[in-house]
């Protein structure tokens, strides 16, 4: 077994060269290269995480904007609706007012006309009375030869007309 048989003559060179070469491996590769490789991996992981975060943020922003747009849209719709109904109400009110004005004019005309008719009728009735009194005076003077004055005739006519 050379490991034991050669131990005395080779142990020092084995240990020396192992320390030298493993030292090279540790300091140059382990301390020098490995951290850089791991940094690269860390950097990549970080970049991926950042990209994912950015994508998430962009999505959130888009959602937010859509929400805001929806809200604004609803507001606009409501405002337009209000405008239309206001205009409708205004139009209805104004037409109602006009109608009332016209109605009032018609009513006064009708009332005036009625008053005129009434006054005409009373006047006509007065004339009929005076004509009847004259006629009664005339009839009485012709039939009975009695001269009846105007006042008496008119009283009699009034009495007769009031009786029917």
């Amino acid at each position, binding site marked *: 077994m050379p490991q034991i048989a050669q131990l005395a003559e*080779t142990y020092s060179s084995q240990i020396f060269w192992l320390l030298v*070469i493993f030292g090279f491996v540790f300091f140059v590769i382990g301390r020098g290269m490995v951290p850089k*490789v791991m940094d690269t991996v860390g950097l990549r992981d970080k970049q991926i995480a950042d990209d994912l975060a950015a994508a998430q943020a962009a999505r959130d922003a888009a959602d937010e904007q859509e929400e805001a747009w929806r809200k604004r849209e609803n507001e606009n719709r409501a405002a337009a609706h209000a405008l239309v109904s206001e205009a409708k109400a205004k139009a209805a009110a104004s037409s109602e007012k006009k109608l009332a004005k016209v109605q009032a004019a018609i009513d006064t005309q009708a009332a005036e006309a009625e008053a005129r008719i009434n006054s005409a009728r009373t006047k006509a009735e007065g004339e009929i009375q005076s004509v009847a009194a004259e006629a009664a005076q005339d009839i009485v003077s012709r039939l009975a030869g009695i001269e009846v004055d105007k006042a008496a005739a008119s009283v009699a006519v009034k009495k007769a007309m009031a009786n029917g």
Partner: protein
Amino acid sequence: MAGETAKVDPMHQFTIEPMFGSEGWELAGFNIAFTNSAMWMLIAAVALWAFMLGGMKRELVPGRWQMMVETFTGFIDDLLEANIGKAGKKYVPYIFSLFMFILFANLLGLVPLPLAMVGLHAFTFTSHFTITGVLAIMTFAIVLIVGFWKHGFHFFSLFVPHGTPVPMIPIIFVIELISFLFRPFSLGLRLFVAMMAGHVLLEVLASFVIDSANAGIGWGLAIGGPSFILMLAICALEILVAGIQAYVFALLASLYINDAENLH
């Protein structure tokens, strides 16, 4: 005939030989010959470095190679995160170096070089307990340093599990202390034994194939054939073992460090 050729020594593959005439190199009186073992450590380190270089493009959208490198760093990162928690981050360089170095060593040691005839063959340095032992002791030293640095003498409470009845504390303490002190040995020996056993098994089966073929075509088909098929299966198993042993080493190292970081 058979007596001449049946000299396949299954242990020869673990022999350490100085290369480039460096057997005389010394440092402070200790021999530091550049051996085939050191050569394969260097090959594993350079291969790992080249592998990592492909992951250094730092592209936002990784290519296949970069993806592979990032998978390995992520694997160790997850392992430490799961076992230690947030504090495990700072051990990623060490555990990654340990895991990848052992993994590359194990896998490269399995590569069948076509130059084996002239004596060049893959050398699995993780099949030497001098190597696995040093790696285990380094890991254990980190556990001790972190444990005492962070918790001071309170670190000894690691050896008294919660809910231990008071009269049992002295015995439990000793038992836990011994099991704790055995950790570096089990850590180092497990890797060494697993790697060595697989390579010895492959070598023994290979010697069956060669020896039975030399004994005649009938023997070759009867014994060499099944042995060869078994070798193929065991090669696949060895690739699995190479990965699993590297993983086990890294996993246990992270579990031990977790004890030091978080006590119980």
